[in-house]
């Protein structure tokens, strides 16, 4: 018997999260955005471009995952949705980076910094994906 021989009803049992959790997440996101905007001021621009890009990229990734995990319910939903979106991005991001570097983006940058910029986000995302690979809602046995 194959898996397709056991169709099961679509999951309809969400872990309901209180509104207050969403409000707290929104406040965290607003705070992170405020930090990002703060980096625009000239005083912070004394940072090297490399460091500024690393700080901004980290904040961007953290915000992205807060929205995806809580607002888009990936933290509570079936793990297949997470696999679907993150696996695609894990493949796409380095491909676009290689393309961009090959076409001359950031020509003066050290090659190891470029490799780090290309590899760190997929590694962090991949680690998170492995950590939460099965997800809390993996029990898709027939009801």
């Amino acid at each position: 018997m194959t898996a397709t021989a056991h169709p099961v009803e679509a999951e309809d049992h969400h872990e309901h999260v209180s509104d207050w959790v969403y409000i707290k997440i929104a406040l965290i996101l607003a705070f992170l955005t405020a930090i990002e905007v703060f980096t625009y001021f000239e005083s912070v621009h004394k940072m090297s471009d490399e460091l500024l890009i690393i700080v901004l990229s980290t904040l961007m990734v953290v915000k992205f995952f807060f929205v995806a995990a809580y607002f888009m319910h990936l933290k509570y939903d079936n793990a297949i949705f997470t696999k679907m979106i993150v696996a695609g991005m894990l493949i796409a991001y380095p491909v676009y980076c290689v393309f961009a570097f090959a076409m001359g983006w950031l020509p003066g940058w050290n090659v190891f910094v470029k490799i780090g910029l290309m590899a760190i986000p997929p590694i962090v995302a991949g680690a998170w994906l492995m950590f939460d690979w099965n997800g809390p809602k993996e029990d898709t046995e027939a009801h």
Partner: protein
Amino acid sequence: MADTALAPDAQVEHDPHATSLGVSHEKLGMWVFLGSDCLLFGGLISVYLLNKGRIGPDDIGPEDVFDIPFTSVSSFVLLLSSLTVVLSITALQRGDIRRTKIWLLTTAFLGAVFVGGQVYEFTAFYREGLGYTTNLFGSSFFTLTGFHGVHVSFGIILLMSMYIRAARGKLGPAQSEKLEIVGLYWHFVDVVWIVIFTIVYLFPQ
């Protein structure tokens, strides 16, 4: 024997709630769409990064036109709309139709404010001399942010269609997954903007 083996598949075909994956097909379909949309925006962002510096010494560049405080306010507005849409979903799951409608309208309004801000920004850039075909920076910038604006506009239409369904009594707790799917689209538009705002506006030029 073959007929016996095919029977469950036939059941899947006829029962909209039966699924071999144990997840909703509609929701999975939306995630697949969002995954493909990631590739579209990934391509547009890459092209922008490549082209933003390919301008002549006297050409208009990013630092000549960007108004970071204004765009920051727009970003906060879109971020806030992600909260309001999720509040509309939880209200619907509780069966509170009145609050669902209020939060849906609020989200659509915030989305409209964001699109209005983008139209204002585009107009201001044009008056400063940056048109779609002025240089490579202008072409890639307007294409990227314009595509995002179209996504937000389409999201507003989806939200208003949900509002109309709720107003006609055709959206209740039993149909909350429909609103959840629209919410997924809206959050995706928000996360794309998180990336665009950081890379296009805040990265050192």
